[in-house]
């Protein structure tokens, strides 16, 4: 198995605050890896470390075949960073923003013009190409931001909260774009607060909480950690009733029999599996109820 990112025991402290407290990460080539966590969990710090912007206090990492600390220039050549806040120049037009990136990638004038036009087309910005980026909608800015990172196709793309603040339609478009990039062979490290986003895009999810990875696995594996299933009954009068079970046939049958005995009859019943939200709350709940880190077991599963 080839990994595009292999980081081990990354730590980074800002004063007393330990933003990253021994993070291990492996990202398989060609996959989407989501780093999930509440605000302040260390997601952005981890992205900044892997994108060569912040030097870790300790730990080692190979990113896209280059040693992060010994050869940051090698890493920079293979990555592209899409920040939390679209890093486009509002005063320049979309085309000029792209042309600037092409020049910084040292394309010749002709090649730069060609690539710029191509990217405008791919990202649906041709009509707006000669308008200032400051006049773009949130979704268009994110697309331009993404396009600016695609002058040369990167091996690893960082999407740091790519859809924060976008309307549902723009979010949908950005997801489609992401899927297309993965099909082209780009590996993606996604950070997000939206569980739906991770559920939909990510092959592997790691939950980061207070600088430590507290769980990792596929969305299904993580949901299985919470376990159980809820029976949702839609009653004849239109009310719904939710009854927790452990998810086994035995328990579901017993629950239904008990409901029958109590005279509860429903024309419609469904089984609701835990959502990533449940997983998230379960794993990042503070203090006493915090579960043991479970990644040792899940590591074998992935």
């Amino acid at each position: 198995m080839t990994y595009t990112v292999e980081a081990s025991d990354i730590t980074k402290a800002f004063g007393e605050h330990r933003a990253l407290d021994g993070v291990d990460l492996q990202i398989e080539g060609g996959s989407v890896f989501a780093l999930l966590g509440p605000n302040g969990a260390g997601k952005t710090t981890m992205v900044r470390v892997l994108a060569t912007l912040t030097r870790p206090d300790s730990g080692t990492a190979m990113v896209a075949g280059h040693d992060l600390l010994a050869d940051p220039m090698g890493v920079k050549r293979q990555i592209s960073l899409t920040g939390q806040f679209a890093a486009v120049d509002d005063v320049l037009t979309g085309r000029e923003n792209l042309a600037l990136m092409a020049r910084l990638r040292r394309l010749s004038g002709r090649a730069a013009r060609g690539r710029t036009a191509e990217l405008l087309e791919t990202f649906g910005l041709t009509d707006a190409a000669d308008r200032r980026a400051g006049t773009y909608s949130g979704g268009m800015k994110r697309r331009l931001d993404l396009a600016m990172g695609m002058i040369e196709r990167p091996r690893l793309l960082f999407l740091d909260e790519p859809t924060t603040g976008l309307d549902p339609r723009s979010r949908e478009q950005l997801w489609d774009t992401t899927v297309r990039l993965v099909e082209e062979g780009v590996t993606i490290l996604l950070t997000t607060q939206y569980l739906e986003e991770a559920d939909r895009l990510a092959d592997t999810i790691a939950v980061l909480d207070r600088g430590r990875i507290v769980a990792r696995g596929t969305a299904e594996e993580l949901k299985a950690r919470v376990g159980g299933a809820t029976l949702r009954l839609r009653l004849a009068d239109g009310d719904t009733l939710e009854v927790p079970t452990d998810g086994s046939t035995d328990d579901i049958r017993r629950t239904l029999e008990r409901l029958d005995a109590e005279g509860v009859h429903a024309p419609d019943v469904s089984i609701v599996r835990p959502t990533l939200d449940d997983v998230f709350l379960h794993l990042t709940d503070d203090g006493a109820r915090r579960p043991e880190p479970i990644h040792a077991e899940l590591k074998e599963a992935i």
Partner: protein
Amino acid sequence: MPLAHAISDSRAMAGRCLRRSLRDPEAFFTALTLPIVLLLLFVYVFGGALSDGGSYVNYIVPGLIVLCAGFGAGTTAVAVATDMSNGIVDRVRSMPVFGSSLLVGHVVASLARNLVATVLVVAAGLLIGWHPTASALDWLAAMGMVLLFITAISWLAAAVGLLARSAEAATAFTMVLMFVPYVSTAFVPADTMPAALEAFAKYQPFTPIIETMRGLWMGSTSTGAPVGREAAIAVVYCVAILAASAFAAARLFRERTG
């Protein structure tokens, strides 16, 4: 990082900064009109009272060049501070480019803007009767002084922009640079001022820089010191400001982006 790449990246970033200055209509308009308005104001409104016969325009040109460069530097500081507060810096630093190209780009654009302002002051001055007595060689030396001065003040502006952390804070720097030249020999000779101000005016950096230009263009300084002496002090000041600012800027840039 090969030097050719550093130069090419810095050129690309300077192009961006210049494009941005051309697209900011208010700042662009102010930068173009300020030198001319100030020149006309000083020569025609204050000039009659300030000058004892002779044409005031012959006195004032170097002071106006310095004043406009101060204004231009303020613009640069604000531009650097603005850039540091958005995602552009991270984007550029995550790319395989010369990291400081962002800073060098701002400084180069600042140089270009200040040169345009200088040319405007000189051209407008000549139009309304400025009569420099300088030889071609003196002209060259005077322009050399201008170039050294605006390079120093542009790096100073970049350092201040990095230090400021916000565009608003950087704006305060413009105010300082716009007013300190008034307490120099820019508009009136130092010996007309009260003792305390006179001492400040004589020894602050703007004075030898202004007197060097004045001496080269008009043949004599307002302080009575030989132009060679003023030039030596001016060069020491400029090189010191340049070295300290460039060093501070490089260091601050690493710290702010690390």
